[in-house]
């Protein structure tokens, strides 16, 4: 195995061209308004709900989702499925709704940065049937340039999550709810 490593690196050294410059990437600015972010999220099949006050969160969740949902969340006292990194797959697979904190949103594409620390379990944002991401409206950036500038470290695992899981693999017909969450709602506080 290590012989392949040496062989490959030697071939790369022999064949790569003279060094070309690495450009500096400017920070392209843009519209970082709630309106822009909301319209993009809606365009990719998600919804945005204005919660206004974080204390209203349980009430809004109650309005949006049926009462008997199995909910996993570090943010709600109503959460009734305790999840941590060691939780079994069977328990994870039975979660109806995960309510998780999003770090910041990107207005140009409707994505929200969700690091591992906010997920309870790495698979939770995908295995849950429905996903709600809580986002502080002050934490919006315009483009991916400002987004990556805000990520100090990608940690062990983290994802920019944009709307619900989807596919268009059958005749280019868009279907929401492929393997991940069937719906994604952004709760703006």
């Amino acid at each position, binding site marked *: 195995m290590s012989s392949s490593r040496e062989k490959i690196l030697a071939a790369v050294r022999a064949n790569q061209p003279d060094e070309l410059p690495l450009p500096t990437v400017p920070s392209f600015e843009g519209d970082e308004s709630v309106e822009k972010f909301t319209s993009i999220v809606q365009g990719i099949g998600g919804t945005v709900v204005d919660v206004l006050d974080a204390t209203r969160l349980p009430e809004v969740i109650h309005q949006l989702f049926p009462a008997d949902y199995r909910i996993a969340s570090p943010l709600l006292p109503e959460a009734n499925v305790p999840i941590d990194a060691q939780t079994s797959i069977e328990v994870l697979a039975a979660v109806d709704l995960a309510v998780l904190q999003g770090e910041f949103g990107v207005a140009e594409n409707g994505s929200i940065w969700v690091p591992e620390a906010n997920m309870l379990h*790495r*698979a939770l944002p995908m295995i849950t049937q429905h996903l709600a991401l809580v986002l502080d409206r002050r934490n919006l950036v315009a483009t991916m340039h400002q987004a990556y500038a805000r990520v100090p470290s990608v940690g062990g695992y983290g994802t*920019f999550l944009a709307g619900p899981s989807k596919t268009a693999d*059958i005749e280019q017909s868009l279907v929401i709810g492929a393997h991940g969450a069937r719906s994604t709602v952004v709760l703006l506080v």
Partner: protein
Amino acid sequence: MSHSQRSDIFLLDAERTTWHDETLWFVRQKRDKAVYATPEFQELRQLASDIKDHTLSRLDFYLQQFEENARRNGVQVHWAADAHEHNQIVLSLLKQHNATRVVKSKSMLTEECHLNPYLIKHGVDVIDTDLGERIIQLRDEAPSHVVLPAIHLKKEDVGDTFHLHLGTEKGNNDPQQLTETARQHLREKFLASEVAISGVNFAVAETGSVVVCTNEGNADLGVNLAKVHIACMGMEKLIPRLSDLSVFTRILTRSATGQPITTYTSHFSKPAEGKEMHVVIVDNGRTKQLGRPDFRASLKCIRCGACMNTCPVYRRSGGHSYDFTIPGPIGAILSPNIDMRKHASLPFASTLCGSCTDVCPVKIDIHTQLYKWRQVLGQAGEIPASKKWSMRLLSRVLAKPAVYGLGSKIARQSLRLLPHGLTHGKGYNPWAVARELPEPPKQSFREWYAQQAVK
């Protein structure tokens, strides 16, 4: 069979060809809409191109930097010189864990290495989890597009396949219901799999992370449930800095499907506690391509598929007509590097219109490379005799004005006098298969010009 012969098979179904053509053009139009809405898109293309050029020029450094950082993160890094070694590495990792149930998300590299048949031969149940990939896996077909693997199929085909393999009702062709069936079917596989294999969209040297982009969430679901993650990457997937991702995430999906970003843009840097993560770095001909100055830019490709969606030949011949893992214009410049003789017809499957080059988000000069491959193939004697001899004859005729004048006079007369069946014979005049030769003029331009000079 050559590309044109395989295209003939695709073209037998005129209705389907038209659908294929129009559907891909629709995707191209979605790309345009997304691109025009991004004011700095052309600057981003240049940046992406420059970042990739720089990375290729210091690839030895970035490969080692990536390896060092990934190892520091607790990731095990493996190197494979070719497809066979890649497959062996993956199998040995599976054996170490006694794993026979494996889920795999989209990876053109594992297609290139023919990993699935290799694993199946060794008793591993490997399941493709991207919906399009799963459809073609059930049908025992190859992907016909890098982003839309089942674009050659109609919903009726998928309905029949699911009826046969997943027990859906016969005649149920509803995409919504078929997707729901696949969701249930694949969820069982996700929950039961021991190892998850993924591709890699970008590998970040400075952090040792691999980035995987999907819309379905299948890569994340598989990887985050399994005990072991094996990420397989071609060595050209490297980029130097985390901040470079800002450029590539902005151009990838806009170019591919017209979306602003994929649903999941996931950064895998460290294995979860108690789990394992492996990265297999594969050469398989890439260092050879790196050493071809005319063709090395093809290694900048980020597999968005924009060149396929825009190509008038791809849209009307289908991905399978290329008989190579990567079809379309980019496949036609990558494939001769792998096997010049086998893929000799692919650089000719182009009108050289240049549309591929215009839409390429990393500014690969695709149509120029197609033209250059034709020269290489010609010199290597890898073009068909009919083309070789007709070109040789033509070059002699065109080099001598008197011979050309005589020749065109004979041609004009023959076209007028000979029966249509003879001048438009399909066997030796393929140009006339679907076209009429023009009405021959009474005199040539040169004859007319000579007359004007006398007056």
